[in-house]
């Protein structure tokens, strides 16, 4: 089982490539880091791998077949800004249950307070919202997780809390993770291998 980007190229404007000829493979249960300066296309690559964006050239495959267009997406993306990733007009309960119904154990381990389920997104802090976004993305059918600066906005304790849960689950289910971050110590701590896309 693997998520593979082959010879991928992308640019937002005509005749201006953000990156080209990029290859990346994440195997089952593997944790890969993605580093590079801002504007290099880290987030864009994450969006392509999760199927939010189509590459202009090259191809993304999951287990040698193209990414699915319908149903629960096996590649889940967690964004940097949780407040932009939840529907402001839904109570947290509905957001949490968008893809699957997480059990109480997971909620507890992520430190999600039952009280919060009835609240609106604008009543919660960034750290609390991000816990919901992580829980939402960890459904049983998630095979790969793209963590795009997932814990950049959080304090170190919350960061360590969230990562510990995610790493446990990844190990249990052999889920692959792509960690996008500019924090070198975090990448070194988490990843078995780090890909740098500064000069592509």
């Amino acid at each position, binding site marked *: 089982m693997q998520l593979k980007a082959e010879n991928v190229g992308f640019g937002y404007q005509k005749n201006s490539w953000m990156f080209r000829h990029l290859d990346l493979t994440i195997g089952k249960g593997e944790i890969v880091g993605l580093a590079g300066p801002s504007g290099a296309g880290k987030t864009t690559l994450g969006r392509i791998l999760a199927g939010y964006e189509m590459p202009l050239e090259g191809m993304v495959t999951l287990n040698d077949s193209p990414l699915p267009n319908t149903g629960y997406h096996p590649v889940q993306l967690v964004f940097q800004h949780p407040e932009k990733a939840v529907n402001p007009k839904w109570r947290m309960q509905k957001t949490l249950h968008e893809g699957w119904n997480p059990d109480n154990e997971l909620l507890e381990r992520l430190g999600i307070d039952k009280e919060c389920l009835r609240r609106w997104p604008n009543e919660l802090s960034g750290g*609390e919202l991000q816990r919901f976004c992580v829980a939402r993305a960890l459904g049983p059918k998630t095979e790969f997780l793209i963590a795009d600066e997932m814990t950049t906005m*959080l304090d170190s*304790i919350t*960061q*360590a809390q969230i990562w510990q849960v995610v790493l446990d689950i990844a190990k249990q289910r052999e889920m692959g993770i792509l960690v996008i971050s500019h*924090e070198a110590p975090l990448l070194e*701590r988490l990843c078995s291998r780090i890909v740098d896309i500064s000069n592509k």
Partner: protein
Amino acid sequence: MTILEVRDLSISFSQYSKGLRQENNQVIHNLNVSLNKGEIVAVVGSSGSGKSILAHAILGILPGNATMTGSISFDGQVLTKEMLANLRGHEIVLVPQSVKFLDPLMRIGSQVQTSVRKQNVVTAQKKIFEKYKLHPLVEKLYPFQLSGGMARRVLVSMAVVSEASVIIADEPTPGLDSEVIKEAESSFRKLADNGSAVMVITHDIDFALKLADKIAVFYAGTVVEIAPVRDFFGRGENLRHPYTKALWRALPQNDFIPIKGSQPLANDLPNGCPFAPRCEHATSDCSKELPAEKMIRGGMVRCLHAT
């Protein structure tokens, strides 16, 4: 010499809970912090701990439903609303967290020029643009045409160019690459060397340690510890408050081990020490009242058991 002193500051917001019923939410409790000339203080703490509210209180730009008690003095004088209105933007400036603070209808160049006070307006603005790698064409742009990182650089450059005596920077780093962060670090340091006092609010301990002289650690609306930067090393043995130790140990370059639980919400604070429910040293005394400030080894701490 102390230039800005915040004493016993408490802030609460009144909110409508249901129908016409109002409830008061206290978000900052009995907070003391002071800024000396030539000093950089970093305020660190998790999101939702009230860091930005402190900045807004110092600037006097809290929303209308906020009530504030305690005092803020500048240069030995307790500030009144009128005095603050005169100082704001001249002697005390803010680098806001949100890039929405720029005037949307004013070109960037003239906007930066409004904050120059002591030099020639146009040359100062051009010089600072060069320093922060802002293209001369940016002068003619409007805020909505800037990228996040560019807008952030504009905000930092406005504070630097004003040469104010107190600069408060609220999360100046997200979205900036390492080169610009280094440039910002050195400009803050230069301002401090010229006699300004700088307060940097951030959740990034790494950045805070590189930049600041002392670190004020925020938890659930109050400062639990003020420690000199040199105390942050090893396994945190020299730190005073258990929360600071936990924060330090949870860094990926240290142990990466979190403590349980999360920060209590402002309307649901435990009695006494706000950290007690998560603290392994907590005793029944801890939940009686907010521990008083103690000075230990040249740092302030609010903990009954600190040694």
